[in-house]
């Protein structure tokens, strides 16, 4: 009896392929605890690396300043101070409007709730497709829970806490591919819609062609706080389907976010 070597090799290759596919399928459906434990262990190595990377990036970004002339720096300084003053005035008027809004809501009988927030630093941004996620430098030790909303600045909603570990957490961004968020488009008329995440801070909405949407309209998340989700950038009417395609984007560049604010859910004490 003779055994052909190429047949043996072919059989081995088929076995390897079958084993790999089986592992892939099994792991796909039963992987959650392994991935969670894996991140918890790896974070002791990766978190310091991310911090070092951020520090190096900060240092490198300040090097070009030394190569610029004093005059250009003075001009830029003046322009930035004027912009800060202007934005400060806008912020004060926004605070007054927000307070008035909350007073009106309270008059209607909705008491609202006092949310406590925590400012956390971003270790790494949405760098790996298809995942649109942030890793932040706070976890169970800072009181974060799964489902806590995450804001940029005071009023821009960007996502929610997806996984929490002892000293870090992963944030799922609402602009991630396939993530749907209920919004109200506030412009000439207020329209309820569903914003589909498109990645990199972009959203896609489909509406009837008769809807009055224009560039600059705000996407606001329904609720007492009316957090901003995005701003309409582009609209296109499709005559064949009588629908209107709306593209919106986040009002800031998510990849440049260094700090975000997490709204901590109130702890519920169960009395037995």
């Amino acid at each position, binding site marked *: 009896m003779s055994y052909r070597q190429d047949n043996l090799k072919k059989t081995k290759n088929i076995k390897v392929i079958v084993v790999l596919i089986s592992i892939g399928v099994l792991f796909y459906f039963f992987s959650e605890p392994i991935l969670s434990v894996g991140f918890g262990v790896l974070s002791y190595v990766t978190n310091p690396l991310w911090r070092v990377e951020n520090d190096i990036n900060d240092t490198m970004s300040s090097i070009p300043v030394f190569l610029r002339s004093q005059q250009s720096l003075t001009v830029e300084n003046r322009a930035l101070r004027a912009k800060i003053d202007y934005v400060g005035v806008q912020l004060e008027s926004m605070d007054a409007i927000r307070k008035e809004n909350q007073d009106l809501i309270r008059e209607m009988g909705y008491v609202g709730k006092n949310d406590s927030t925590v400012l956390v630093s971003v270790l790494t941004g949405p*760098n790996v497709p298809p995942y649109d996620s942030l890793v932040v430098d706070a976890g169970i030790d800072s009181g974060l829970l799964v489902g806590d909303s995450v804001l940029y600045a005071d009023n821009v909603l960007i996502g929610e806490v997806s996984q929490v570990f002892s000293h870090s957490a992963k944030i799922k961004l609402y602009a991630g591919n396939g993530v749907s968020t209920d919004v109200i488009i506030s412009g000439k008329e207020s329209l309820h819609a569903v914003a589909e995440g498109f990645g990199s801070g972009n959203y896609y909405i489909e509406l009837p062609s008769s809807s009055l949407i224009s560039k600059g309209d705000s996407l606001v998340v329904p609720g007492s706080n009316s957090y901003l989700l995005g701003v309409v950038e582009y609209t296109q009417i499709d005559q064949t389907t009588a629908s209107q395609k709306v593209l919106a984007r986040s009002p800031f560049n998510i990849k440049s976010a260094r700090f975000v604010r997490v709204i901590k859910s109130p702890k519920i004490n169960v009395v037995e």
Partner: protein
Amino acid sequence: MLWNRLCFDLIIFVGVVIFSWWLVVSAIIYFFFLYESFYELIFFGLLFDTLYGVQIGYTQVARPVLFVISVLLYIILARFKQYLRFYA
């Protein structure tokens, strides 16, 4: 040779954490063709899922999408490797 491979594995591990994904994937594919049975490709797919994975779309839990893609990529590239004259 084994020490070389381990050093490159360590560099790619740091690259997954720090560098851009396309640079790391290019390096992994390059080393796949350089070394025999480069199962580290599957490990690094799992590493991406572990570090950056969250729920996608309508799924309730984070699924290891890149791990599955890396398994399929391993099978396809291993097959492709057999037809390259360099390995004949």
